[in-house]
């Protein structure tokens, strides 16, 4: 076995092994430490010997034994009464349990729901999830937040402390709270994706590794909790957005708007998968669900041969559904953009201005950009120029600034 192959196995199995170890050991930090030691042991033994037939079970069993050793040593040292719990010592049948996929699936769900517990601030939920479920290193998570590694390590330590001290149970939520809690998990996954899809600041327009992690998480969740429209909807949405990645950016890192993108660069396979999932999501019973509707909109874009040849009336209609079920500044603006393609930019500008008057879009950084674009299409060049200046001031993203600069040149000449 090469180190690369072993590494891949770790990547695939780490989350699951950790999830089960946390349950057995009852402590995040101890489980993580023990898993690290176990990896080290695997790196020593696996290349020389046969690959274990069930690497996940191997990791969990070796990890569990190391945890027992550790706790025994702690007891001997401090003379405290055993924290060698029943779970940890278990019995022979527990080893067969390791092969039981259902048990391991439950543990993974436990881990995901615990990381996304509502008593954590959303950024903390994201950080915990990236670190323990996705297995990113603290340094990688810190980079995702543009924070220092030290600050991120602190944040994670405090979060794990809260799990212990505030008594956050390592459980899948009960039936009554499952729906809202699941929505929380999906929100975290979507946060990870949107941060990867359009980074909020800095030089890079996209951080594809984060987008891939989010998709991986949603796939996992879909496998663990099948037949749920909101999960399929979110996965479809992310796949469809991500499929356009190659078309969104020039080699120089400049943004290419949807209307100018070379659609042949889009990932056909991912689009096909996304479209399939959208259909599955829409076929499942229930009231309209926000991710599924957003995915349906993305599907209409993905299917269209060109920007002009897109089914704009249907898209506008779908945004109206979104305005009903989950209104937000983004939805309002996207709705207006769709309306501009159906009824023209003047009508859309009325909508946007009415919104602004109602105070619904205060401080929303893309508002001036949308106004600028509509004004440009109406030939109101002075107003457009002012709006592009405001848009430039409102964003921290270099590629967007360059785009606005280009547009400003167009309306100045």
């Amino acid at each position: 076995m090469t180190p690369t192959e072993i590494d891949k196995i770790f990547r695939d199995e780490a989350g699951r092994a950790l999830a089960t170890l946390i349950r057995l050991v009852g402590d995040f930090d101890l489980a993580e430490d023990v898993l690290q030691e176990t990896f080290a042991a695997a790196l020593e033994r696996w290349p020389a010997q046969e690959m274990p037939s069930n690497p996940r079970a191997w990791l969990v069993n070796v990890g569990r034994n190391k945890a027992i050793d550790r706790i025994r040593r702690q007891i001997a040292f401090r003379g405290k009464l055993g924290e060698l719990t029943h779970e940890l010592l278990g019995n022979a049948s527990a080893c067969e349990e390791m092969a039981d996929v259902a048990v391991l699936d439950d543990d993974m769900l436990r881990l995901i729901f615990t990381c996304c517990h509502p008593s954590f601030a959303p950024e903390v939920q994201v950080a915990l999830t990236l670190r323990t479920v996705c297995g990113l290193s603290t340094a990688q998570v810190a980079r995702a937040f543009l924070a220092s590694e030290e600050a991120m390590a602190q944040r994670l330590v405090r979060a794990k402390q809260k799990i212990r001290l505030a008594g956050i149970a390592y459980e899948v939520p009960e039936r009554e709270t499952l729906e809202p809690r699941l929505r929380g998990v999906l929100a975290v996954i979507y946060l990870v994706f949107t941060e990867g899809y359009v980074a909020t600041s800095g030089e890079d327009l996209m951080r594809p590794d984060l987008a891939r992690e989010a998709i991986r998480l949603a796939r996992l969740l879909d496998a663990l909790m099948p037949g749920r429209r909101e999960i399929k909807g979110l996965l479809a949405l992310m796949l469809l957005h991500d499929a356009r990645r190659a078309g969104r950016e020039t080699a120089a890192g400049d943004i290419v708007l949807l209307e100018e993108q070379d659609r042949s660069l889009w990932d056909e396979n991912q689009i096909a998968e996304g479209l399939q999932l959208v259909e599955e999501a829409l076929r499942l019973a229930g009231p309209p669900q926000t991710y599924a509707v957003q995915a349906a909109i993305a599907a209409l874009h993905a299917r269209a041969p060109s920007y002009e040849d897109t089914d704009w009336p249907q898209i506008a209609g779908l945004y109206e559904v979104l305005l009903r079920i989950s209104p937000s500044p983004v939805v309002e603006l996207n709705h207006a953009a769709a309306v501009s393609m159906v009824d023209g930019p003047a009508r859309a500008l009325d909508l946007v201005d009415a919104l602004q008057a109602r105070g619904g879009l205060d401080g929303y950084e893309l508002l001036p950009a949308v106004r600028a674009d509509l004004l440009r299409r109406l030939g109101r060049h002075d107003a457009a120029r002012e709006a592009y200046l405001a848009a430039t001031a409102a964003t921290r993203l270099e590629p967007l600034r360059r785009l606005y600069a280009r547009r400003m040149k167009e309306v100045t000449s």
Partner: protein
Amino acid sequence: MQYLLMIYSNEAEYAKMDPAAGKKISDEFEVFTKDIIQSGNFKAGDRLRPTSTATTVRVKDGKVLTTDGPFAETREQLGGYYLIEAKDLDAALGIAARIPSARHGYGSIEVRPIWVYN
């Protein structure tokens, strides 16, 4: 696990409630308290007199300083508490959400675990 549920609300707003609504919430508090006593979660609980009746004590350089009113001016003020026993945080949060003033949209409940010394 033991948790302290601290009941915060804006005293001025709470006082503005009409007497009938006020009585309704009081009655609900009675029912709620009886419920959690019966379920074994209740350890203690009291309503507090308003912050106008508070006195704050600080000791500086050995001198005892007394000021009129709460420790700080805040938008919401502590109006009462429950000390409860609950299986885990979710159970405690569930109980907190049933507290009548919170259920009717008045203020917030801070849920804090008790620091247990062995």
